[in-house]
């Protein structure tokens, strides 16, 4: 349960931190790091406008979408703080839950009958299918390295004994960070700060969502960030420390990750749309590299 609470806490400041970092780097003062949460609270109280084209799908998909993210968060452990749900192969369940959320989001976007949203939905589906192998290979190589097949067992047993095994951590963090950016459609895949219809993937899918639904989507995005941040924290924080120190380090890692995204987004332009698929497939290639690193370290080659 501690892990889940930590993820929720980090989700509170994650999007705000990214925004603040970007603001400072572009020479503005910027809003406070809790501004996105205040926006969400305001949205939760607002009324909604529904398109006349939409159907029952549009009404129910977003709450279920958020449920998938919350359950996905329940699967993430933090080293010896056990997750709420844990079993052999729970990361498969995790990946497919995210897939379910995506299926629902795409359906609700298609339900509006808008060309913009169709475009966003189409791209979301396309990038998702390209990113999925990268995640599975990454977790597969960690499973190979530790010899276990659930998140909690993998992260408890992930010790970097030799000097070289730091390489695993480096590659894993790199891949996870990039997956986070693709999953949330951030730079360089998509620029969330451009005007609505110029944002080609995620934001354009939610053009017709308003009020409560939009709030839930923002909550989902924030949670997704801190879920992947949590995975990164699991990969780099060494095991066997005092619990208080650990909690502090977890929050520190998440905070640094958020600032890192802000920093990265400040100095990076968006890819041309046609280049995105190449960019995402490269991640899978790097993940395959990770597999070979693990094989060498395990003396399989």
């Amino acid at each position, binding site marked *: 349960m501690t892990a889940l609470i930590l993820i929720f806490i980090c989700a509170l400041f994650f999007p705000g931190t990214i925004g603040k970092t970007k603001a400072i780097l572009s020479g503005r003062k910027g809003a406070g790091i809790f501004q996105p949460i205040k926006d969400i609270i305001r949205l939760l109280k607002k009324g909604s406008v529904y*398109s006349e084209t939409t159907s029952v799908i549009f009404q129910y998909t977003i709450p279920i979408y958020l449920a998938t993210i919350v359950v996905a968060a329940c699967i993430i452990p933090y080293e010896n703080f056990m997750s709420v749900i844990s079993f052999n*192969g729970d990361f498969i369940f995790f990946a497919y839950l995210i897939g379910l959320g995506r*299926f629902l989001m795409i359906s609700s976007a298609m339900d509006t009958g808008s060309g913009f949203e169709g475009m966003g939905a189409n791209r979301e589906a396309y990038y*998702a299918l390209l990113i999925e192998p990268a995640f599975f290979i990454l977790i597969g190589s960690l*499973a190979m390295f530790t010899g276990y097949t659930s998140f909690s067992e993998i992260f408890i047993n992930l010790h970097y004994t030799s000097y070289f095994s730091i390489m695993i951590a480096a590659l894993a963090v790199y891949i996870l960070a990039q997956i986070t950016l693709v999953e949330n459609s951030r730079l360089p895949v998509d620029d969330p700060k451009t005007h609505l219809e110029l944002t080609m993937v995620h934001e354009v899918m939610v053009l017709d969502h308003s009020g409560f639904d939009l709030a839930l989507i923002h909550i989902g995005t924030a949670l997704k960030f801190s879920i992947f941040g949590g995975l990164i924290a699991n990969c780099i924080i060494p095991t066997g420390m005092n619990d208080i120190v650990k909690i502090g380090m977890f929050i520190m890692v998440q905070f640094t990750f958020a600032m890192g995204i802000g920093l990265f987004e400040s100095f990076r332009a968006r890819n041309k749309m046609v280049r995105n698929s190449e960019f995402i497939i490269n991640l899978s290639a790097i993940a395959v590299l990770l597999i070979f690193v693990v094989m060498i370290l395990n003396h399989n080659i």
Partner: protein
Amino acid sequence: MESLDILLFQFILILSGLLLILPKRMLHTYVLLLVAALIGISSYWAISVIMSGEEITRSFFNDFWYNVPKLTIDALSAYFILVINFTILTGIIYAKGYMKKYLKDKSKLSIGLHYFSYLWLHASLLQVTMMRDGLSFLLVWELMALSSFVLVIFEGEKKEVMKAGINYLVQMHVGFLFVLLGFMVVEQSTGIMSFDSLTTYFLSHNNFWLFLIFFIGFGIKAGFVPLHSWLPHAHPAAPSHISAVMSGVMIKMGIYGILRVLTHVQSNFLEISIFIIVISLVSGLIGVILAIYQHDLKKLLAYHSIENIGIIGIGIGVGMFGMVVNNPVMVMLGFSGGLLHVLNHSLFKSSLFYSAGSVYQATHTRDVNKLGGLIKSMPITSILFFTSAMAICGIPPFNGFISEFLIYNGVFGNLSHAGYGNSLASVTVIIGLALIGGLAVFCFTKVFGVAFLGTARSNYRNQIEEVKESMWLPGATILTFMLSIGFFPDVYVQSIMPILYNFPFLIIDNTYLPVLSETMASIGKANLIFAGIAIVLILLKKWQQKKVQVAIGPTWGCGNTGGNFKHQYTSTSYADNLRESVAPLISYHRDYKSFETEEIFPDKRVFKTHTEDKIEKKLLIIPINAFIKWLPKAGLAQTGKINHYLQYPIWFMILLGLLTLFNII
């Protein structure tokens, strides 16, 4: 002394003759009764086999045949019998509504023949799983092909239906030839033509080659790439309940055949497993990629059958690979995943075909690009399609996830402390499965989004209405079944495990069983948590919406308020992203007339795109066309002139004379 059940079984088959005589209105009720009786008897056998763990043997029609054929039911047969029975039952219920339209136009005989063939398809499917003797097996195998052929050409007055039917019949007989060849090899070596004598053969010969022959024979039925090309033609041609039965259970008979042969395999596990894994991965990927480019709803589903056969094959291949690397957990997970996927696919695929059939009946088109907005006029059908689509993508909390999870879990478990080749194979399977999953989501979000959501992309000829309950009731039953597998997977996985004891060579770790059921129970629990949270959030939304103002407006159009339905994404544009990356598999054609340089007032233009399956083209159409071109050359001697014909015997005599002269004959 024959037992009562087999007498009844035979009696029903004889009673089926009445279907050709009875009046039209009574036909459905009558066939329903007969099918229900067959289901009752065979399910009784199947369940008692699973309960007791002992084989049941019955002699069948022993007064008529040359050597008394035996029906033998073991756990493997029992499992397939139950899968067959469920889909056949939902199919015949669905047929009540679907066939109503044809009652007026079709003659009594053609409807009678249709139901007659349906019953015989059911009977032959059941017997395929029960016959062990080679000749009887081939007989019922042929009976299955013939009865399904009659069912496919129900609308045989349409040219393309007849063509698809003939194509199907020919390909089935190519498959038949290979199965026959396999049995002949066995008979040559052991003297007995039967599945049981395979063990003797496999003990003394190389296992791979005979397995390959059987695999080709059964693989054509199952639809493994590159033996798949009958599927996308036959499924759209057949009535929807027939597509559902064919895709749901008949192609699984190919899987059954492969599994039955595998139960006797003794060695060469490495070659066999790698072969199955490679061909299954190829089938899975190619099936789903080709599906993305289909705009005919039923053709798209047919390609998805190929994909799912691939997933089943991956499960079986992974299980066999577990034998090679001596990993009992991988063996259990692979085989149980493959077997469970057989059931799962029969559920969601038949449900999808029922929905597609309902859409066809309501709108008179299967072209996805012409559909749209159906969820408002056909909510039940649409929701059934939506849930089955999620299930086929292997998404929790539905059943498809459970079987894919088992396969994944087996492979991931194998990764720890595995050798080089071993981990490479496992990683390949993982990448393949992940890609198949992602592509399936891509395809089904496309088809659901385009056909059921948004607004109509063309004017429907008539008012669209929800179908009658006999047409959505089967889908609703299947949905309940699918959810029960998703939420209580431990029950199902535990009942599949006894089938694995049927494979004598399998190494099974009994201590792993409780671990597996615990894992399955946790998935069920996780799904329940998910459902709970989802319901709470939905209720929260309802409560919030009561307090605030809710307005209705047009879809945001960025200043364009025309509200033109043509702005929407279509099936073609949705799939366009992927086109470059799959160019080796699909040829893409555009038909249009380009503008002339000095064409001041252009006339009306038409732009059309269509795609073609390159594998089918290169492997079948081009060689067959070349063959057809070559055939007339064989008719060179057939000039039609009597004097030529009189010459031939003379030349023959001279040839004989010469040959004897030189002592050649």
